[in-house]
């Protein structure tokens, strides 16, 4: 289990994250929601070293996560950052193979199991047929799947995704969320941020609502809707519809 204990982050004395305590349950999907600039990305970036924790602790299965070496962290937790501005002109397969970087020894030699995991990640995200194509020639949706494949090739039990569906069309978004559900079925812990509240409520086991550098609420989607936290934070009204595929949420 990944656990934040009284984590604060400040940048030039401006607090960006204030005393966040939160546990992410194992094998579940937890989504962070909140208005722009509320600290969602910062909260996640404590995990890949792009934000420096000023006080507090992060525990992973009882071990102090921040004391692990970057390599050890990357073997336990994979992280896909927000929308990419740097699109490499590398072949898809080469990029996905970068996901094995945390495991490579000094000789940097790939083993059979590395190759298998890369292949599995490419099959799972359905990018196999682009294997030799440079990433910068692909459409936005495919690119995102390729980067996701790289993240999966890291073969970690915890997968962190920062706004993975931004800029994707509706079908790609749905496919992406289906992949997340499948990963949960395989027992992975998934932590992500989303702006689409309907999606957040449909796929998550737990929702963390953030505002003004703090976690306001951490509950299951149903509990979250029953309290009036959504109205307060997002200034919207919501409605719930249901059919055989589950519930749909509308926010206006």
């Amino acid at each position: 289990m990944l656990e934040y204990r009284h984590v604060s982050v400040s940048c030039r004395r401006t607090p960006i994250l204030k005393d966040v305590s939160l546990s992410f349950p194992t094998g579940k999907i937890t989504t962070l929601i909140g208005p722009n600039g509320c600290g969602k990305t910062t909260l996640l970036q404590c995990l890949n070293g792009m934000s420096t924790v000023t006080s507090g602790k992060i525990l992973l299965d009882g071990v102090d996560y921040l004391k692990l070496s970057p390599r050890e962290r990357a073997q336990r937790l994979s992280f896909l950052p927000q929308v990419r501005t740097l699109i490499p002109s590398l072949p898809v397969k080469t990029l996905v193979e970068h996901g094995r970087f945390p495991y490579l020894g000094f000789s940097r030699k790939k083993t059979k199991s590395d190759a298998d995991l890369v292949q599995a990640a490419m099959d799972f995200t359905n990018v196999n047929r682009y294997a030799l194509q440079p990433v910068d020639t692909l459409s936005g949706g495919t690119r995102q799947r390729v980067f996701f494949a790289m993240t999966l090739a890291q073969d970690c039990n915890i997968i962190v995704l920062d706004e993975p569906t931004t800029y994707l069309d509706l079908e790609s978004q749905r496919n992406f969320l289906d992949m997340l559900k499948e990963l949960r079925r395989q027992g992975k812990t998934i932590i992500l941020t989303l702006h689409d509240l309907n999606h957040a409520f449909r796929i998550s086991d737990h929702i963390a609502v953030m505002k003004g550098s703090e976690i306001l609420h951490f509950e299951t989607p149903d509990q979250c809707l029953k309290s009036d936290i959504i109205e307060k934070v997002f200034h919207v009204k919501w409605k719930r519809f249901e059919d055989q595929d589950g519930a749909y949420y509308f926010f206006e």
Partner: protein
Amino acid sequence: MVQCTNTKSRRNVILFLCLLLLFSSFAGILFGSVSLSPAEVIRTLLAGDIHSTAGILIRTVRIPRVLGGLFAGIGLACAGVILQGVMNNSLASPNTIGVNSGSGFAVMFAMMLFPANASVVPFFAFGGAFLTSLFVFLLAYLGDSSRTTIILAGITISSFFNAGMNAIKLIDSEISINLTSFMVGSLSGLTLTSLLLPCCCILAAFFLSLLLARSLNILGLGDDIAGSLGMRVPLTRLMLLLLASIMAGCVVSYAGLLSFIGLIVPHICRQLFGNDARFLLPCSALLGGSFVLLCDLAGRVLFAPFELPAGILMAFIGGPFFLYLLLKKKGGRRIHA
């Protein structure tokens, strides 16, 4: 853009580059103000005949010159690949961002301080290169400057150090250096003993950089991804800058400010191989070596008995090529765009 991504055509291109390098090295020994016949050269090299005229010429003039050119090409081309990767800027190279000038200034400075002690020169050259590249990098990183700003800053740094070099020459007219050929880069007057230290350093740095090639690739994905993949980003950057500085500095210490190799050669290799540093580094080394050797050869042969420094020919070829890159709008863009 034609890229050979499959292994077979890649192997062919690498083979071709190796042959090109062998050919240009041999041609470098063969031709010059006095041309030797191939049979003569092979006989002298194999028999170890060092007392004939040809033997002395080969041993004291031609071989040092070829070795010097070879390592100058390897050093500058690889330094170019690394700097372009670390700064993620397709216009970066030892000479466009001022690393060469910084190193050259340090060389002149060392010669002024220790006129009798030539062995300190490579260390000063490396120090100058490293401090300059660190400075430019911090400028790029902290200032979040645009890609072209870095090049402009590089030009400023270059002219600053060039002024410094001229000043040293004026202050200390005794200094044993031909400023004109040093500023443009030249391979004349090299000896095996003076080459030993710089060439060993370049070779060592080259092999170390091959070990870091994959890290260089990952750095190109952006700091956040590199960090997520468990890389110590600042440390890796620093090590790569260190290696690039060793290579560029060592070249400057004996060949002066050879321009444009560090820019052109990586570009050509990128066209051939894409951005994978694991191929880019060795191929740039091969092509860089050949390019310097051929330029030097042309300078010796075209206007014989006069000799044009290699650097002049390089600038004649490199200048238009740089303009071509700018006009193609490739310039100023990220290498991964």
